[in-house]
């Protein structure tokens, strides 16, 4: 049900310090989300491709994940150009595609693809426990990080529990349909998942207290300092500034079409 295809790997990106990667992923994503200039967006998309390539991501997995937003983008391209007010670009009968609408759809498509790829290349390339530690070092509250790790750990356990319950339902002849009976069965399934989760939580909590848990996970491997991290940081800062300059028309200005 859940897999992390990018988390393990041995590319240059995988070996960089997770704190640096997380920080710059957030910084670049925010910058890209606010862009309005097409040359800056194009460049950001290029950077995203470059990062994904240097992380040596599996292309099929990348496409699979991109296809989840492509459905949304397709809907966007159907709805926005028709409903957005502005100067008409084409007309067919009573349907009007506006120039501004097409503009906006193109912007959203470029930006969301770029942000998604940056995220896949820099953040999805670490395991969740590493991300948790990186977030802690980047001063996210300890309790929240603890909650994140706890939730992650139990997704798999609860997922298996769900599979077991669902198998039991199917053996007893359950077939999903649009009926009250079907929804009732799902409601009881969810209810049972919550009950089991809550009982498990009680046991886990007792076991943790028994072992002297004091609200902190200790980790044996620490982040290794390396000059490569600083090269990465320098490059990312240059890219950040480059995109900023393009956005403000100071570098390769492009007239909106």
């Amino acid at each position, binding site marked *: 049900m859940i897999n*992390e295809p990018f988390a393990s790997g041995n590319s240059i990106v995988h070996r960089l310090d997770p704190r640096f990667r997380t920080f710059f*992923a*957030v910084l670049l*994503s*925010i910058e*890209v*989300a606010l862009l309005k200039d097409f040359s800056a967006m194009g460049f950001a998309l290029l950077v995203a491709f470059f990062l994904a390539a240097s992380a040596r991501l599996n292309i099929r997995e990348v496409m699979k*994940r991109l296809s*989840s937003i492509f459905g*949304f983008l397709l809907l966007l391209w159907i*709805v926005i150009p028709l*409903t*957005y*007010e502005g100067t008409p670009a084409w007309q067919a009968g009573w349907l009007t595609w506006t120039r501004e609408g097409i503009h*906006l759809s193109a912007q*959203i498509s470029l*930006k*969301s693809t770029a*942000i*998604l790829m940056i*995220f896949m290349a820099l*953040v*999805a390339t670490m395991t*969740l426990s590493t991300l948790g530690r990186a977030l802690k070092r980047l001063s996210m509250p300890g*309790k*929240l990080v*603890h*909650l*994140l790790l*706890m*939730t*992650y*750990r*139990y*997704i798999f356990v*609860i*997922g298996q529990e*769900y599979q077991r319950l669902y198998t039991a339902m199917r053996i007893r002849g359950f077939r*999903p349909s*649009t009926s009250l009976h*079907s*929804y*009732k069965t*799902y*409601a*009881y399934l*969810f*209810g*049972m*998942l*919550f*009950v*089991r*989760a*809550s*009982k498990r*939580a*009680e046991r*886990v909590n007792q076991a*943790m207290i028994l072992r002297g848990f004091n609200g902190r996970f200790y980790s044996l491997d620490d982040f290794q300092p390396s000059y490569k991290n600083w090269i990465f940081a320098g490059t990312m800062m240059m890219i950040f500034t480059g995109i900023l300059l393009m956005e403000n028309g100071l570098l390769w200005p492009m007239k909106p079409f």
Partner: protein
Amino acid sequence: MHISEGVLSGQVLVAGGVLAAAGTAIGLKKMDYERVAEVGILASAFFVASLINVRIGVSSAHLILNGILGLLLGWAAFPAIFVALILQAVLFQFGGITVLGVNTVIMALPSVICYYLFSNIIFKSNSLAITAAFLGGFLSVLFSGLLLGVALIFTEESFFEMVLLIVGANFPVMVIEGIVTAFCVMFLRKVRPEMLPGYVK
């Protein structure tokens, strides 16, 4: 229910981020370390439950279940949903970094509202409890849709038709969330009432 990257304006993203941070801070404050295991494991149960597709006529949809999450967790729904959204982003690349705040508010604020509206009706008579639970499920999705609409319209007024389309298309989901929440609450009342708010032995 969430908004993708690259759609919203800077102001909306910042507003969402600030509200989500405030809600999460309150949630964390109300949740001591003793309860982290409980909230975490329940959050993962919701994560799993929201992956399950339920048939609606010829199509199918996954449920959000933020109404019942609110009833079970109260303010802790904020950190729980925030964490679940991080996991969705990392594991499936649904949503993402910049919209994390907005999406947290879209789903968690209705949870908290439902908690305040309905948590003390759950142990009343059967018919009252069923109505309250149904409304909890129905309204939480409706409120989420409306918040999503607010975020889109504040970004761009021309998104109005799109918002109508989204909220309208989610109407069947609201009804089904209501039905499922009602059955689920009645189930929990029988099986493990101590999980629900306002339980006295």
